[in-house]
């Protein structure tokens, strides 16, 4: 039997179906948490913020205008919540390089739903490299490369011109690739993704 669509779950949530709400939480918890981790660079803070996001989603279910754009709306809420938290914690936290010891803590050693084939070493390397990026570049990577949002959606979210988002995405991608190579110059030129 096919899993219910997000639109179906949302409709049932609005009717008070608590099982539908649980299913919705389980479906999106990974994404909300992943985005929170990248903004906040701290698993505990990210977990608290992710829970706050879901409480906010719950209160605003009736305000969702387009169920098909639910993920974009969720990512917007998550981003705003993370930025609020960062402002309270102090902006410096987001720009610091995460020490190697903490990178292992932030990078989830347990495979996520789409993690098959991504080795722990590779995951930790990517997380270290992400920690070295500027906040702006990391945000582009999170939204475009990880969450696979369209450039137009990102432009709407960040209230930026599409051209600006494109060029920032390109620069962020190059910056991340160059950072990964600097952190692990032993990687062969034609190596694949898994390690």
């Amino acid at each position, binding site marked *: 039997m096919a899993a219910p669509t997000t639109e179906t779950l949302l409709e049932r949530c609005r009717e008070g179906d608590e099982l539908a709400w649980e299913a919705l939480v389980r479906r999106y918890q990974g994404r909300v*948490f992943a985005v929170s981790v990248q903004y906040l660079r701290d*698993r505990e803070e990210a977990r608290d913020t992710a829970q706050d996001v879901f409480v906010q989603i719950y209160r605003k279910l009736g305000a969702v205008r387009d169920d098909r754009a639910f993920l974009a709306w969720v990512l917007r809420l998550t981003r705003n919540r993370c930025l609020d938290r960062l402002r309270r914690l102090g902006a410096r936290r987001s720009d610091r390089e995460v020490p190697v010891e903490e990178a292992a803590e932030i990078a989830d050693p347990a495979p996520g739903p789409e993690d098959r084939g991504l080795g722990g070493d590779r995951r930790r390397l990517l997380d270290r490299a992400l920690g070295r990026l500027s906040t702006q570049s990391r945000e582009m990577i999170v939204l475009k490369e990880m969450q696979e949002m369209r450039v137009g959606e990102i432009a709407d979210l960040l209230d930026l011109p599409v051209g600006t988002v494109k060029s920032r995405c*390109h620069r962020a991608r*190059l910056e991340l690739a*160059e950072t990964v190579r600097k952190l692990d110059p032993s990687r062969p030129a034609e190596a*694949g993704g898994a390690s």
Partner: protein
Amino acid sequence: MICRDFERRLEDWVDGRLASADGAACDRHLAECPRCRELAALAGGPDRGASRVPEPPPDLAPEILARTSGAACERARERLAPLVDPSEDGPLPEAERAVLELHLEACADCRALRAELVALGEDLPRLAELDPGPGFVEGVLARTSHRRAAAARLAERLRRLGDRLGSGLLPRLVRRPRFAWEAAYVAVLLLTPLIASAGSPDAAAQAVERLGRAGGATVASAVRGVTEGTAERAGSVGAAAGTELRTFGTRFASSLQRGGDERPAGPDHPDAPKEDAP
């Protein structure tokens, strides 16, 4: 064939790519033209270009570029991202792609960068979701279910209150003239000193104190009357609520009266205690 025709065919003639008819025409021209023979000798002759041209030093091209257009890697990197991910703007135009591939053949750094970009394109989406750990979903459900239960309880209480008000209790209270007059009287007495002494807390306190002494009895009587009347009419709501209201009114009135009678005398009062002399 004239010299210009030979010059256009020179590279293919050197690399042996000319069709046999063209090659024969070039050979005939070379037999008659010393200038073109010299040119052919410089190019290395037919079918021998690569084997007779000495290998240039590996840094020759970068040095030339540094003195002319600048390093090519920066430009190559601008094209690498769309080469690897054509999803937004479509693939690179063929000519740009071909030129970029030539650079990549010669530049190990850019080749490695391209390989890393390809790997990132595969790996980063796999980081889209992270496991928040045990108990996360339960925590969310507890917070949202609690809200739902609390909202339901509040809605029920409001519904019951609305039923009671709608039964006519409030309209009856409002329509009784004695209640309305007494409530207005108490409100004026309580608000007047506050309004008159706006911005001056000391003056407000003194005004209330004078009110308490001079009008405490009157106010007490009025408050008692209001609360008594309300308590009687609230009998249908609940005897306990009416009793509580009555008790409150009595205590409030008594405290107002005591405020006028029992306050310690001020320093100018004849009975006020005197400080010890040094």
